[in-house]
């Protein structure tokens, strides 16, 4: 059964407490399988022109109502703080946003540990100087559907004035939904309380809606910081957008250097990711890949690390275990439920090929790491500081995430084993940051409010 079919089976409208018809569909909708799509970045030169475009785009943004039903394609709209400013929002609203969002991702580089080869000065122009004001994302089941929605959006854009298209990026993956390194991704998603779906077998309990939807109660019991006025903030969310160039060749070379044959290389890769390429988790299939398990959404996420406290099966430092410890004991007081994210990443570039070497890393492979959370700006800074670019929370000192960590000096990866752990040296930055921004994903009523300049007439 497909991922969506699995969701649909567990959906019950009687359990819905959220205002699904006001929340952008992209927040709750999983990617289609296979998926294609496009991200477009816009710059607003003229506030009135920008608002007019937002108003017209709002009509093409589907809500989350019926989010477990099939939909051939959908559009999502997100706006940066610089974008909201360029659209002429009043100061009171602009200042009501959380500080990190106001400052923007580039200015938060110290908190994000975006240094050296990941520093904002090295980013692509679309992400420099707060250029990225509006991000449009279309996810579609096939090229024809993508075209249909893209043409609608482009028609609105062409008739808009005072808005510049500063970049577009097409992406897509086949039904195996593999990332640039050949691993199925975006498998584990949190269950949002009140959205109408009960957790899958093995998933953790549903997470409080306020962790993902502004205005709802969070895990702390009250809503997290929300911009004013209410019509702007409520039912919106925040989005972290980070574009990575994947150095697939350097990764392949690293595996070749430490594994004498394909099987040894695949095994080391699985230790680093926490899953085999099919998506089968090491925890359920410790010794070799299992295609059927990897493709089964009812089983491929049905596990915890309860019986693997030593990390002998899935290393503590594996990317997947770091990003979602599933209740593993950590050294530092942490509430794992408030660091969960809705992942909407998209892969671009040629499919993974074992024979690519570092010389073949041309910057054409990569992924847009995109996630949604009501405190996305806090979550990414927490992840970058603690769970990605450190090992302290795992009792591993300075060891970093082997897949997405920044490794200015070659790093090491600890693989627990008996009678003694093994350390593999020579990890480099396999995913290099090319840009990113903090975005706000307004509700549909907020898009309309922005579009008509609601603060001018209604204040």
């Amino acid at each position: 059964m497909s991922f969506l079919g699995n969701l649909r089976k567990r959906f019950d409208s009687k359990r819905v407490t959220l205002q699904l018809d006001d929340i952008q569909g992209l927040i709750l909708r999983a990617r289609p399988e296979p998926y294609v799509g496009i991200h477009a970045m816009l710059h607003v030169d003229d506030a009135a022109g920008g608002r007019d475009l937002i108003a017209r785009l709002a009509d093409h943004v589907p809500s989350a109502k019926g989010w477990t039903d099939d939909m051939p394609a959908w559009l999502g709209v997100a706006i940066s703080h610089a974008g909201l400013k360029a659209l002429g929002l009043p100061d009171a609203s602009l200042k009501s946003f959380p500080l990190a969002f106001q400052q923007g991702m580039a200015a938060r580089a110290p908190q994000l540990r975006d240094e050296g080869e990941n520093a904002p000065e090295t980013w692509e122009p679309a992400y420099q100087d707060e250029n990225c004001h509006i991000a449009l994302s279309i996810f579609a089941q096939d090229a024809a559907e993508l075209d249909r929605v893209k043409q609608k959006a482009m028609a609105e854009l062409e008739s808009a004035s005072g808005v510049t298209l500063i970049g577009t990026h097409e992406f897509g993956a086949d039904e195996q939904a593999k990332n640039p390194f050949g691993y199925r991704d975006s498998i584990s998603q949190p269950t949002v309380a009140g959205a109408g779906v009960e957790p899958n077998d093995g998933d953790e309990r549903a997470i409080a809606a306020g962790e993902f939807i502004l205005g709802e109660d969070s895990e702390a019991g009250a809503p997290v910081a929300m911009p004013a006025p209410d019509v702007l903030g409520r039912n919106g969310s925040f989005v972290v957008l980070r574009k990575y160039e994947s150095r697939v060749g350097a990764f392949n070379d690293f595996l070749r250097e430490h594994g004498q044959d394909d099987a040894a290389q695949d095994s080391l890769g699985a230790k680093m990711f926490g899953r085999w390429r099919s998506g089968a988790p090491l925890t359920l299939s410790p010794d070799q890949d299992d295609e059927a398990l990897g493709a089964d959404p009812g089983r491929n996420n049905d596990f915890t690390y309860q019986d693997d406290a030593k990390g002998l099966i899935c290393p503590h430092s594996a990317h997947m275990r770091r990003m979602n410890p599933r209740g593993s004991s950590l050294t530092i007081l942490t509430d794992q439920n408030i660091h969960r994210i809705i992942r909407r990443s998209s892969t671009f570039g040629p499919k993974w090929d074992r024979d690519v070497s570092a010389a073949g890393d041309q910057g054409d492979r990569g992924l847009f790491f995109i996630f949604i959370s009501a405190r996305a700006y806090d979550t990414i800074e927490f992840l970058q500081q603690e769970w990605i670019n450190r090992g302290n929370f795992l009792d591993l000192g300075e060891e970093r995430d082997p897949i997405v960590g920044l490794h200015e000096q070659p790093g090491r990866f600890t693989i627990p084993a008996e009678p003694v752990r093994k350390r593999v040296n020579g990890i480099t930055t396999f995913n290099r940051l090319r840009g990113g921004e903090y975005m706000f994903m307004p509700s549909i009523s907020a898009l309309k409010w922005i579009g008509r300049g609601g603060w001018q007439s209604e204040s």
Partner: protein
Amino acid sequence: MTDKHNDPRLDDESRLQEFRRVAKEVAADAPQLAKIAIEGLIRDHNKLFDGTADKAGRAGRQSGNVSELTAIATVKPGGAERLRRIFNLTGGNFDGAQRVSTLHDMRFVFFDDDTRIIFATTYDGDWDTYINDFATKIPGLMDLLFANVEGWPGIDSPEVKDYIADHQIDAAGWFVANPQVTVVDVRRMQRMETALNDFMDKMADNGGMDDASRKALAELSDAVSVPEGVDY
């Protein structure tokens, strides 16, 4: 304060010269002993134990993995007395603080006739990283301690970060003996010390060692057998 990119470490030549120049100015009228003392401040450091002069996120200083936070606030009427009773009850142990596992120390000092308080702490990482976790995991402890301070918005308030930053003052001078070592590291090193000594006891009694084991053990002994002062 400068950031990491234009504040090279002490062994950087230009920074060292700058340090010497300032030291000379400061020490111009000082007796010879003071000059020697100031020279001592700038001698070459062992890089392994180097600190840095970074910012701990929004406020405070950071040296290596360790940061400082000093905040001054007005105490509510009767607040000092209530807090003293809490501190006496705990007898210096803060269970919540232990569980956090990033806190090296905390101190609470009342002054101005118990109307104001200095809160000073040394901790690992950036100051606001785990604040959301405190709000859901130990909200009671945080509010118990800080509810006696004027204007405390509550640990679960979206304004709590602003409140703390507004009351914080960067330390003008700050020395950390072990800037690279976190509280978690220290606990692990203590466990390793015990485990390593047990291991060495067993090896001391092991007559039938192969060459590779004997060589590895000799290297281990070499690294830890000579008493060493604190080199920082």
